[in-house]
């Protein structure tokens, strides 16, 4: 038993302190696990399971425990910035006035700003598929500018706000072309 414990400790020490390079895929905050492709010369390794690990000089993939990841990467993981918070605002159709629900959402935006050490805001306009795509690029940029002026009005410094117009590229509700869908006519706010 004692021999086994020592053997495990030695193995852990080798994995956590070995010279060379280590790459480990982690589950994201929502549990999703993506893919990292590690290319070393002619050799390619594909990591797509939680904690799958590539070590330089070892052809076989291995797996770190969550504890090993924490002990090796604790400093870096602790320094990861907070995930951007996302809010959606809607306009009363045909106006540049926000719906009542969206006015309440602005309070949440302010709360998210106060919770962050150096907050900045990205305002992203989106359209539905009515009209041609170039016109929708301009319209979405205008909607973002309109919301930017709201945000300046409630006290957010202009230099901390950037705007973008995504046109009809990112439909919240997928539709055919030229389809009037109010849920797609929205402005998204990322607080970062």
């Amino acid at each position, binding site marked *: 038993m004692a021999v086994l414990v020592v053997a495990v400790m030695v193995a852990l020490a080798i994995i956590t302190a070995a010279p060379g390079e280590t790459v480990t895929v982690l589950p994201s905050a929502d549990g999703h696990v993506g893919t990292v492709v*590690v*290319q070393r010369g002619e050799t390619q390794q594909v990591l797509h399971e939680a904690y799958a690990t590539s070590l330089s000089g070892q052809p076989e993939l291995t797996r770190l425990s969550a504890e090993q990841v924490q002990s090796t*990467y604790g400093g870096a*993981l602790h320094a990861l910035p907070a995930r*951007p918070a996302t809010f959606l605002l809607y306009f009363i159709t045909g106006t540049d006035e926000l719906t009542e629900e969206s006015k309440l959402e602005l309070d949440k935006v302010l709360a998210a700003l106060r919770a962050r050490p150096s907050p*900045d805001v990205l305002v*992203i306009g989106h359209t539905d598929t009515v009209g041609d795509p170039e016109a929708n690029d301009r319209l979405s940029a205008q909607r973002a500018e309109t919301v930017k002026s709201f945000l300046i009005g409630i006290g957010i410094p202009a230099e901390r706000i950037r705007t973008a117009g995504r046109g009809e*590229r990112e439909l919240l509700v997928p539709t055919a072309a030229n389809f009037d869908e109010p849920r797609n006519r929205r402005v998204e706010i990322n607080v970062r």
Partner: protein
Amino acid sequence: MRASLAVVLFSISAAALAADAGEIKVVSGAAHIERGSVRLPARVGMPVQEADRVVTGVDGNVGITFADNSLLSIGPSSTFAIDRYVFDTTTHAGKFDSTLSKGTLAVVSGKMVKQSPDAMHVRTPSAIMGVRGTDFVVRVSDH
């Protein structure tokens, strides 16, 4: 005379056009940004740009949020370079190449990888990592 004026004007417009790649959101311990020959103490709120290097001391950690919502953090005793950062906020097309020469790095990929899976690469001395929409960590040990 005319040529030197043009050089001055060009360098000014190039500086103005060099959009920030991201912003430092977290700093602890000793950490610097190396920009050309200038060495700046890392501070929360400081913008980072293409060609910047992040260098941390034995107790240093730096967290950066990039324009496309990629999140990167650099652990202690590390050297990390932003080799290339381009991001179009309209199309989400972009390119993000970086190098971890030593130390530790944590990555949460952002919008450009969702748009094009080949947009983001992290290099180490012996490998190139292609990032397909995921969280991951990298360590380069120099001993």
